[in-house]
């Protein structure tokens, strides 16, 4: 089953840059993580993203080449600064 859009979670400086903590991107699943990153880059605020932003799928760190399926929880993540 294909969905016409994919939801992506945003946090901290990225939530500020894109105006929210969750955004719908016009990318159908299945896709790869990089398709979502490129769609995000095309939006206002997209210049805020580094060349290779951090991404998690289902709460685990993944490469930009990782595949995304319907129902996956995707997060594009600013440089972490805990501690």
């Amino acid at each position, binding site marked *: 089953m294909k969905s016409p859009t994919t939801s992506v*979670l945003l*946090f*901290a*400086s990225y939530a*500020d840059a894109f105006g929210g903590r969750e955004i719908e991107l016009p990318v159908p699943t299945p896709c790869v993580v990089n398709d979502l990153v490129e769609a995000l880059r095309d939006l206002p605020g997209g210049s805020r993203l*580094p060349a290779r932003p951090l991404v*998690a799928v289902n*709460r*685990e*760190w993944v490469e930009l080449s990782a595949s995304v399926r319907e129902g996956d929880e995707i*997060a594009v*993540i*600013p*440089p*972490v*600064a*805990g*501690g």
Partner: protein
Amino acid sequence: MRQPIAGVVHAEIVEREIDLAALLAMVQHRGIGAVSLFVGIVRDVNEERQVSGMEYDAYVPMAAAQLSAIASEACAKEPDLVVAVEHRIGTLKVGEASVAIACAHPHRREAISAAGEIIEALKKRVPVWKLEHYIDGSRQWIDPTASAQAATNA
């Protein structure tokens, strides 16, 4: 004293003050010879700017999972290690603890290395961010990748 325990006894993202005494108590049992506690604290200056406070944001479920995974990996390397770890989020004042890691082991070197390794891994892998509030009223998300200096900061 309690009978021996080992492994991760506690790994949580919390929105309240960190209770250091509680963390220390959690990792102790009859077989422990050493405890190493690391505490990260909001300080008044960062990169030469005067800080008035800090707001911590997190991707909470992933941060909790990563914290737990990091602690579990440390315990997998050292079978007798006991770990309790908390990261606080929300608004913190200067002087308040943002993170605490308690590691207990029969021997001191293992307890000390574990606490050091866990804080380093936490800073790389746990999705938490800080918005620094400065005394001039401005605010800024901290980006440890923005400068080499910042990457070595506590």
